[in-house]
């Protein structure tokens, strides 16, 4: 028993290095996708303090809109453009209808509102585009779909999917672009000001409403990118929503407000759950992926309640 837990997995890693590499790669790709969803959460939480449960649904909704439009005869890139417009309208609508009237409500009310939004978007998306899973139009968007295998020692093989590589590249571009946007533009500065202190930002003439709409739009774009990547791995349908729950432990690890935290947290969870599942999961019947991420996050939280990158909390009275 002890052997199975403490020795055997490492022996396996050593004996089949190609497989171990493959596991790490899968963990990396999963981690990137979790990080992208978490990134959407972080953007919104930073700017408005809203824990946006609907981020997972926005991912599906964006993907579904893109594919749905294409299915109805819209050329791929036009559909992409239209989807961006739709996400913009959605962001504006959410700001107008949900966020503005609910400003200054307690966290839990805002959280519930985003869960309400989740329900609404599920119904709305399926109402418009139908409920069956749809194939992502990866090829039409000029995304690579093949795979490359690397020989590795004797009989060894590491297979890299091109789409996964593309996902990683796009994620990096996305984060870099957001970084530039935050640090170099006027709106970015205003956004950081809002994140720091709403009242103070208001008093220097920054429009909160405008910032919120922009942030929701940015989160919508991140969602769209995530939706395309994830959709290319498995089809687009609302079943993906559940996978989005994986982004929550990522947030806990990384802290609710840290963009680097989201990315590193995503990678930790991605690696952790794949390695855990493949080398230790078998001991308890497998499927531990569904909760391992949460347990990792929970244990972590007990030692560092503020997350990886959060600041130490000093309680005051």
């Amino acid at each position, binding site marked *: 028993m002890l052997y199975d837990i403490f020795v055997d997995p490492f022996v396996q890693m050593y004996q089949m290095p190609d*497989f171990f590499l493959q596991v790490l790669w899968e963990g990396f790709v999963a981690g990137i996708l979790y990080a992208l969803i978490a990134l959407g959460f972080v953007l919104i939480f930073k700017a408005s303090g809203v824990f946006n449960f609907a981020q997972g649904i926005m991912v599906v909704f964006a993907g579904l809109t893109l594919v749905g439009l294409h299915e109805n005869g819209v050329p791929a890139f036009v559909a992409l453009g239209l989807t961006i417009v739709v996400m913009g309208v959605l962001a504006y609508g959410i700001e107008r209808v949900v966020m503005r009237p609910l400003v200054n409500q307690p966290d839990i009310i805002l959280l519930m509102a985003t869960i309400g939004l989740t329900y609404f978007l599920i119904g709305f998306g399926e109402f418009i585009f*139908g409920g069956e*899973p749809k194939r992502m139009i990866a090829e039409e968007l000029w995304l690579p*779909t093949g795979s490359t295998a690397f020989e590795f020692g004797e009989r060894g093989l590491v*297979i890299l999917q091109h789409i996964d590589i593309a996902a990683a590249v796009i994620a990096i571009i996305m984060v870099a672009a957001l970084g530039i946007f935050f640090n170099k533009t006027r709106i970015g500065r205003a956004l950081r000001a809002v994140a720091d202190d709403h009242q103070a930002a208001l008093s220097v003439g920054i429009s909160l409403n405008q910032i919120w709409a922009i942030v929701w739009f940015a989160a919508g774009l991140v969602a769209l990118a995530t939706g395309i990547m994830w959709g290319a791995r*498995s089809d687009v349908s609302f*079943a993906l929503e559940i996978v989005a729950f994986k982004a929550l432990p990522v947030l806990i690890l990384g802290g609710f407000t840290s963009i680097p935290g989201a990315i590193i947290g995503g990678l930790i969870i991605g690696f952790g759950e794949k390695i855990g599942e493949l080398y230790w999961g078998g001991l308890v019947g497998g499927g531990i992926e569904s909760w391992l991420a949460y347990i990792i996050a929970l244990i972590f939280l007990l030692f560092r309640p503020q997350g990886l990158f959060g600041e130490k909390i000093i309680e005051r009275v």
Partner: protein
Amino acid sequence: MKHLKTLALGTAVALGVSLGGVTPQVAQAEDANYVPLLTYRTGPFAGSGIHIANGMADYLHMLNERDGGIGGVKLAIEECETGYNAQKGVECYEATKGKNALVYNPYSTGITLQLIPKASVDKIPVLSMGYGLSAAADGNTFPWVFNVPDTYWDGASVVIKYIGQQEGGLENLKGKKIGYIFLDAGYGREPIPLLEQLAEKHGFELLKYAVPGKEMQNQSSQWLNVRRDRPDYMIMWGWGAMNPTAIKEAVKIRYPMDKFIGVWWSAGEDDAAAGGAQAKGYKALNFSGVGMDFPALQDIKKLVVDAGKSPTDVESMGGTLYNRGVLNSVIIAEGIRAAQEKTGKKVITGEDMRIGLESLNLDEARLAEIGLAGFAHPMKVTCEDHSGSHPVFIQEWDGEKFVKVTDWIEPMTDTVRPLLEAAAKEYAEKNAPWPERTEPCAN
């Protein structure tokens, strides 16, 4: 804001008041046979469910259009959305059973399991065509449940038999590794006892890969495990979004597709198409015809789909799952017809329907008569055997469509049947006191 609050108060009160009026009308036309269809066109399983739902509804509507129903009595058809959710399924059942429902087709093993104990109490049969509780094939224990034409255990035995054929005999399975990837729910677990039995008997190693329902679209770990274990064959019991994802993942790890065999529910065109060109060679069981070359299907197209009376997409007609839905309705319709003959009544009840299903005999002549010659293997139900363990065939994906690649293969009835009876007995014991069969055999 103040007005908003008044409005909210008003809304709340209005909702409260209208509550009283909700109870669905039990008023049902006296001169129709009422068939509720528990379907799902939403949720993670909609991808498979929509085709089934269309097939089921379209055939029954076609009968109404073409023949004015069955035996001169129209069919009242009502769909109730379950979302593959057991709770909603039961709700649908409770809401519709009072309207003199004839039979239920839950299209979910989970819902089926919940309805089985209710069936004998409410006197409404459950028809779980090729799914549900395998043990329900034992008509003596489960007089109200039908799983014609085959149980999952029949299906699993056919897969093993086929693999044996490929390897040049069942004895060559010794020492082989066979992987079983399944939806981790009642559905996917159902065949495990049989597969384990066969593994012991024929000396192969059974490797199980469970896919949790909520992680259907994220199977990379399971397939990494497959890659590590390198099983000689893979068997899949998948449904909904699990199927296309699994096929994609199999392609991704470069698993030889011709050694990958799905159950009849993993046989959708969309499922295989998701794997792209590399999915060529993927195999699946089937027991219903593929294609549109059947007069009855042409009638559906003409009278229902083209007439705009159905949400069905013309292109999806003739697909495996659509045709499966049609076959389901064929069995319902033939059950009703048999019941009308046996009882002499035109408008029948659930109890009559049970008799009708129990005396179902869909032979070749009858299939031809209803315009479905060769659509399915002739099937027959007896009082003892509610499944019949009918032969099934295997179809292969050629990159565009499924092609039948084997002849009809008989299940290993001699192995399966005793196990079924033992399982039925065990079920009755576990659920003691389980009602004894009191219904006389009408055959």
